[in-house]
């Protein structure tokens, strides 16, 4: 009985390990796995844009915008981790991963710049918001490409 249980356990571990490395992952699965962190990053950039614009319009305080941007830095970090730890099965997947990493990193740069501006370090609102917008567009484009694969 004990042997049977041990074997079952081993089988379960093997199955889990197989899934984790993406042995049988189809392109659709891969695209889906990357879409979710990209959506997270879009959400962070959207929040950052709103927070920056509010500060520019004098509707928000520096402290609130700073905190909102800081929180989004953390969200982007999570998204970047998810993309970076993704294991692609083939060349297409690897290319997607590289694209995703670049766009998420660009988003991090844009949000960090916005935070610098909110705390009075260089740059101006126009540049900051333009960089955030560009980052949002890049994220949306990549998500759209992946969505075509998943058919969602």
């Amino acid at each position: 009985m004990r042997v049977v249980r041990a074997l079952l356990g081993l089988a379960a571990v093997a199955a889990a390990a197989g899934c984790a490395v993406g042995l049988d992952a189809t392109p659709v699965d891969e695209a889906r796995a990357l879409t979710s962190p990209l959506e997270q990053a879009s959400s962070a950039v959207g929040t950052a844009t709103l927070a920056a614009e509010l500060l520019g319009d004098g509707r928000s305080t520096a402290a609130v915008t700073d905190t909102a941007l800081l929180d989004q830095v953390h969200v982007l970090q999570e998204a970047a981790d998810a993309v970076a730890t993704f294991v692609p099965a083939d060349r297409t997947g690897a290319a997607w991963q590289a694209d995703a990493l670049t766009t998420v990193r660009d988003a991090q740069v844009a949000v960090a710049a916005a935070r610098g501006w909110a705390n009075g370090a260089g740059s101006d609102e126009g540049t900051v918001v333009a960089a955030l917008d560009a980052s949002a567009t890049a994220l949306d484009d990549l998500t759209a490409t992946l969505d075509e694969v998943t058919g969602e």
Partner: protein
Amino acid sequence: MKRVLGVALGILTAIGGFLDIGDMVTNAVVGSRFGLSLAWVVVVGVIGICLFASMSGRVAAVSGRATFEIIRERLGPRAAGANLTASFLINLLTLTAEVGGIALALQLASSVEPRLWIPVAALALWLVVWRAKFSIMENVTGLVGLTLVVFAVAVFLLGPDWNELADQALSPTVPAAEGHAVYWYYAIALFGAAMTPYEVFFFSSGAVEERWTVKDLAQSRMNVLVGFPLGGILSVAIAACAAIVFLPAGIEVSSLSQIVLPVALAGGKLALAVVIVGIVAATFGAALETSLSSGYTLAQFMGWSWGKFRRPAQAARFHLTMIVCILVAGAVLMTSVDPIKITEFSVVFSAIALPLTYLPILIVANDPEYMGEHVNGRATNALALVYLVIIVTASVAAIPLMIATGAGS
């Protein structure tokens, strides 16, 4: 003015119960992902908490016995002990989240790192629990917490498409991007957040602290009928703000700082200042409510002397319990754990502990030995039985759904 202050207990209980850090975040998350399609859960929750809080308030006013004494007396030491363990841990979890919430709200006001605010928040909390009169505590936090009405004002200022909001709320459907399991997981989280047991522990013990008697039954009913619906309306307003600003932009709420952005968008710096004051007051109120509840539940289970109307030395173990809980909460937070994550768990775990709290209240509210002529009427009992079915269903479904959906992710 006396009449206004007369409902302070209900307002503090409801603001602490409905607009604590867990509810604010859960409501905003739900608004940003599901629009108002889960608003019906808040309505169900408000009716439920009104029903059982008014029962526990009536029991406290008529018999002078607070809820956990009754739980112990009716369920015996085993079942009541299980309930105590669960309630106490949930309380501690919630208290931890609230102290973290105070720190996060103060970060919004100052952009000073929350870790530095935690000791300040914990000390202030203890000083109020230790020294302030119950009536002053409830009036100040209740009245200041009312500034959260600014969320409702913001909904109007944002000038939303009312037809669409009404459509989301009145004919709820699961949005295409979300699964059914996730929808129901959040339904249970909202229900648990609305009916959190610490609200009845606090409300009934508060009634004893204020020495309510049969003469105050009308006041007790007023407290319930004003406080909880107000809390419910404001929590729907938070969801609506998120639904108006974040849902179309595809933004998912994950932090407290996002919740105040729609208010800033609607009302500018003034509204922003008001909402931050409100959030500090509400999380502080909830922290008071949960730290007192931890003392109330343990003291009432063990039969210890309790109450803020006594000198601390005359309710020594009660005060020691609260001191230990506040210290533990502060210590846990200093490990840099995310308070928002803690609230998500505490809200769902409270859904699990609901039946063990609400069943004894219903039984005792029907016991003429305690209640005399003030036992439940037939309509109340019928409604309460319907709610017990809902409560048990939510409690059973909570854990499987939490596992199946990866806690709603």
